[in-house]
């Protein structure tokens, strides 16, 4: 009997959470007008992480929207690095994530950190999309070809070919200090990331 009651409670919780989730994805800026493709509510996480906190961050070199190639190892010994994977250009939550980081430059600076934004979209798409966000101070990298290779090596490539909404914090020695593979439907609160960077600084 207890078990059955539990099932009922789970059912109710499930129904309620659908209500909450559907609305969560929509806190959207008018900057993109009608150009945002509504993806609906997705499976929160759809990949298996291949790296772990305490391990060495895997190096990569990717092309950026500004034209130069960016390698992770160029920050070794100089900067803490935040990798922000977002699933795809022109989708609801992603379009509302980097513009916030864009006004938090001084906080990243305070913690001696650089931000690298990464998606599996190609450069022209990223160019058009990030143009809607104003002038971004951080590099935006394209993990388009071989498709999602970096996302895949980190274990954040979803089964449909987009990446997770994931944050990786790498310290100056190249060690992974924080991983947040976030529910794809929600934006990670800024204070969580900044709390981690603040601890690194100490």
């Amino acid at each position: 009997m207890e078990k059955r009651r539990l099932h009922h409670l789970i059912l109710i919780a499930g129904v309620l959470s659908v209500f909450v989730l559907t609305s969560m994805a929509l806190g959207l800026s008018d900057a993109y007008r009608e150009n945002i493709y509504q993806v609906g509510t997705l499976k929160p996480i759809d990949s298996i992480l291949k790296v772990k906190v305490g391990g060495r961050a895997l190096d990569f070199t990717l092309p950026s929207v500004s034209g130069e190639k960016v390698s992770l190892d160029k920050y070794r010994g100089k900067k803490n690095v935040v990798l922000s994977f977002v699933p795809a250009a022109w989708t609801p939550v992603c379009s509302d994530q980097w513009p916030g980081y864009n006004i938090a430059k001084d906080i990243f600076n305070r913690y001696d950190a650089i931000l690298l934004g990464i998606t599996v979209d190609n450069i022209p798409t990223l160019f058009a999309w990030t143009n809607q966000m104003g002038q971004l101070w951080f590099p935006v990298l394209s993990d388009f070809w071989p498709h999602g290779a970096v996302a895949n090596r980190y274990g954040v490539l979803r089964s449909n070919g987009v990446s997770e909404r994931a944050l990786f914090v790498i310290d100056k020695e190249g060690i992974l200090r924080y991983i947040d593979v976030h529910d794809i439907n929600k934006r990670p609160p800024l204070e969580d990331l900044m709390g981690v960077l603040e601890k690194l600084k100490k």
Partner: protein
Amino acid sequence: MKSILVLFTVTALSISTLIFPALAAKKPPEKGERLPVINLPVPKNTDERDYLGLSGSGLFKIPQIKAKAVIVEFFSMYCPICQKDAPGVNELYRLIEKNPDIKDKVKLIGIGAGNSPYEVEVYKKTYDVPFPLFPDKDFVIHQACGEVRTPYYMVVKMNEDGTHQIVHSQLGDYPGAEKFLELVLNASGLK
């Protein structure tokens, strides 16, 4: 026992379907309508509390603000247009404050849709926002107001008899401080 459980589930589901439409409005409140119930925390900052004519602590509702008209801006620190318009909205506040005829009649507040207190603070500091901003981390107010895109502006007129109504609302298209103030004064009958 089983029938009790089924009854419980059905009741819970029907209550949730009854309650949710009330909380999560399908569309923004329209001109002429009342505001949905929005509970905001009385600011801890004395200047902000005085600005809104509030006292004590706990929660307050927008119509309790001591004013003839209240401008409510839905913004987000993650919204590029809100960022771009922020200096112009600050200017609106200054225009109102330096005009003795309307200073005590028109007040301005911002609600950070989906923004945590930390995120609202980043926005406030970045743009040096001089008027009170309130976080709405879990989108509760945003949902009650029909999940408007940002920035969204509402002007609420307070009537002598204690009632209120929305006299203007618009999505984006901020025309600059002077034009917007004129629009506010006309819509709320203060001109």
